[in-house]
């Protein structure tokens, strides 16, 4: 419909064509998901095997968790490029802590610390990002670019650039544990999504966050603590990234600060947007973000499992992102 449309953004143009589209576009994400599933069932060998579900759940978890945080940041009208670096930082810290002599002496306390401390550090990074954005008025892309560059550097300095490998079954449960046959991370994602959704739908904080994204000045003049709300969004996003970093390390039984969370920011942003988040802010479809993450994961899986060469896969992925967002766009007005 937009093909021959003139450059009018505020106008909505209900035409016959759009009407037919509305069914599909209202649920663009779901339609895309079903299409990919159908394709896989027909083409990909052994797709209906339970192990496939298992593999996909465990792989999607980190993207999904970060995407939820990213959705909140985007809802305030911001963006967070530092998620990958924060993952690396928290991922580097955990083994440093539980392989330290202190933790070896007190295994339980060590284990607890190795989860709590990295997440606290991640939260602190979020405070830094949020403070830059809200107190110093630095533009979010650039504010988070600072940690994007140096966060990973800090992680590498801490570990001297070394790969840290370890055997610690209790810690690895984060990444490899199973409940009722499904990966532990899968449950974690659902719990996090449900909590954040609840916060956004029912709490004052959620409402204020959306107001800040929708019209910051109006929010401020209505007494919304804009700065605090924004910092809150970055802190949550950073905390979730920290958790995702721990999960990656737990699955691999190794922490490679140079690699953890590489390019995660792009996946997370794409997931959020495919899930219906508007980059201008003011909207936070949490389950949409999960859906977006699942779609992105399935695209990856499909291309890999069918032996599509990496370079061609890149092109295919590009096409699918464009298509998925295009279908989403149609429903916007």
């Amino acid at each position, binding site marked *: 419909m937009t093909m021959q449309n003139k450059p009018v953004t505020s106008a909505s143009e209900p035409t016959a064509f759009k009407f037919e589209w509305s069914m599909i576009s209202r649920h663009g994400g779901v339609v895309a998901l079903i299409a990919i599933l159908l394709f896989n069932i027909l083409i990909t060998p052994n797709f209906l095997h339970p192990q496939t579900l298992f593999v996909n759940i465990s792989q999607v978890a980190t993207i999904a968790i970060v995407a939820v945080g990213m959705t909140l940041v985007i809802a305030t009208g911001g963006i967070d490029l530092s998620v990958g670096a924060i993952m690396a930082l928290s991922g580097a810290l955990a083994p440093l802590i539980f392989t330290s002599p202190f933790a070896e002496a007190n295994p339980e306390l060590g284990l607890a610390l190795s989860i709590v401390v990295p997440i606290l550090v991640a939260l602190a990074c979020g405070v830094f990002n949020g403070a830059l954005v809200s107190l110093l008025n630095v533009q979010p892309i650039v504010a988070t670019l600072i940690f994007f560059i140096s966060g990973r550097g800090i992680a590498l300095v801490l570990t001297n650039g070394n790969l840290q490998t370890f055997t610690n079954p209790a810690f690895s449960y984060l990444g490899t544990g199973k409940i009722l046959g499904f990966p532990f991370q899968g449950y974690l994602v659902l719990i996090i999504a449900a909590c954040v959704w609840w916060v956004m739908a029912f709490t*004052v904080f959620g409402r204020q966050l959306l107001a800040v994204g929708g019209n910051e000045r109006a929010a401020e003049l209505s007494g919304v603590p804009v700065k605090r709300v924004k910092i809150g969004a970055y802190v949550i996003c950073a905390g979730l990234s920290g958790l995702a970093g721990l999960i990656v390390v737990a699955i691999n039984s190794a922490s490679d600060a140079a690699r953890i969370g590489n390019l995660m920011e792009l996946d997370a942003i794409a997931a959020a947007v495919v899930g219906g988040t508007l980059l201008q802010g003011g909207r936070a479809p949490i389950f949409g973000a999960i859906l977006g993450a699942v779609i992105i994961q399935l695209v990856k899986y499909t291309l890999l499992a069918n032996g599509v060469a990496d370079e061609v896969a890149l092109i295919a992925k590009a096409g699918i992102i464009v298509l998925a967002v295009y279908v989403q766009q149609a429903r916007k007005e």
Partner: protein
Amino acid sequence: MQHLIEMSGIKKSFAGVVALQNASLHIEPGEVHAIIGQNGAGKSTLIKILTGVYRRDAGEVKINGNPSTVSTPREAQDAGIATIYQELSLVPLRSVTENVMMGYEPRTRLGTIDWKTAHARTREILERFGIHIDVRAQLGSYSTAIQQLVAIARAVSLNAQLVIMDEATSSLDDQEIEILFGVVRELKKEGVAVLYISHFLDELYQICDRVTIMRDGQTVGQRVIAETTKLGLISEMLGRDPEEIEAAGMTGLGGETTEPGRPLFEAKDISTKRGLKSVSLTLREGEIVGLGGLLGSGRTETARALFGMDTLRSGGIQNHVVGGNIRTPAEAISAGIGFLTEDRKREGIVPHMSVRENMTLALLPKLKKMGRVDRKRETELVERFITSLGIKTSGMEQPIRELSGGNQQKVLLARWLALEPDVLILDEPTRGVDVGAKFEIQSIIREYVDKGLGVVLISSEFEELVEGADRIIVLRDGYSITELENPGITEESLIAAIAHHHDEGARG
């Protein structure tokens, strides 16, 4: 005679909501034509269809007798239609010159922009409106009124056959309006037609030839203005009996001057970085204090300072309701102060959010129940205000951006009334509001004032100020220069007070 513009049978709906169902409009060359109608009647939508911002669902548009091919604002301009849209369509970040000249910049021989000529020409155009400003400065650094004048100047400078002004006078005070009317008369003399949309019926009698009346998306009449009465226009516009309306009176702000109660706050010699020099002002329970003055005299600045948006440089505000000073809007709100901004679009509404969410935005801390929003109380409250303020909406979940300007204003007013504040600062509360709704809004304010609310009222409409305010503080150039007291203020005396001091200032 050939019609300049001929629109008939226009239909338009937005995502199922009907905005226009059978609208028509006929404009003759060189006439000044008005459209009136309640908020949401479809006036702006009709002209946006004419200028190609929206596409019509059905109907016919002819320009000079030929079917119109206009499908973008640019094509409308090329077809000789210059428009000042209701929500100012300017680019605040760019300079005044750019905003006036954009798209029609003078060129040098090399084909590049000739900035010198551009600035000079802009200065010249603005001078016609009595504005002498630095044309290189960012437009956004000037007040809404100046921006509105710049928009008008731009439109007028385009050499059109038809200039459309959608509520162009909403931010202007009498003096500017006079200048504008002068320009309109000049245009008329040059054979340029003007389409004039306004909620100020008095204005229509001064300059318009004919008027088109719209109600609920339909054109319900077209009159020669000289042959109508104000009451007749209103009754046609509202679709109600003339007697009924007459009984209600024209402004709703006036009331008995009651004994003012205890003092709410006292501001002494306050000044801010933004240009406030020395303003003193007290407010007591149950009174309306008006701020009078010309554009840029510092009325909005005073409001900002009282609401904690600008930090005080000197002087102090003593708040008698709560102690302590106010540094942020949030603190002001919790101290019982509300502020209805004059810039609805930029500082008021959160466009994507629903009427409900917009209305309760400031109230959220009070609706909090263990971190959660108390949805039951919220819904009740919103329902109550929608009914009591007569807000025209398809439901409380409708996004506020889909409401007409006047209805948005009512939602914002409800945002503050719901807080049950002690002090309410109203900056142009009835701007862009139709006569019916204006009366309602004014009555509501009066009702709250009678119950003890203290109001600081800023209005460019002297009538509103004179009838409504118990006292008027007259401001000039950031100083409060005199105070008038009701009863006894007339529009003439107010104008005299402002002008007297102004003239004195200009000479001195």
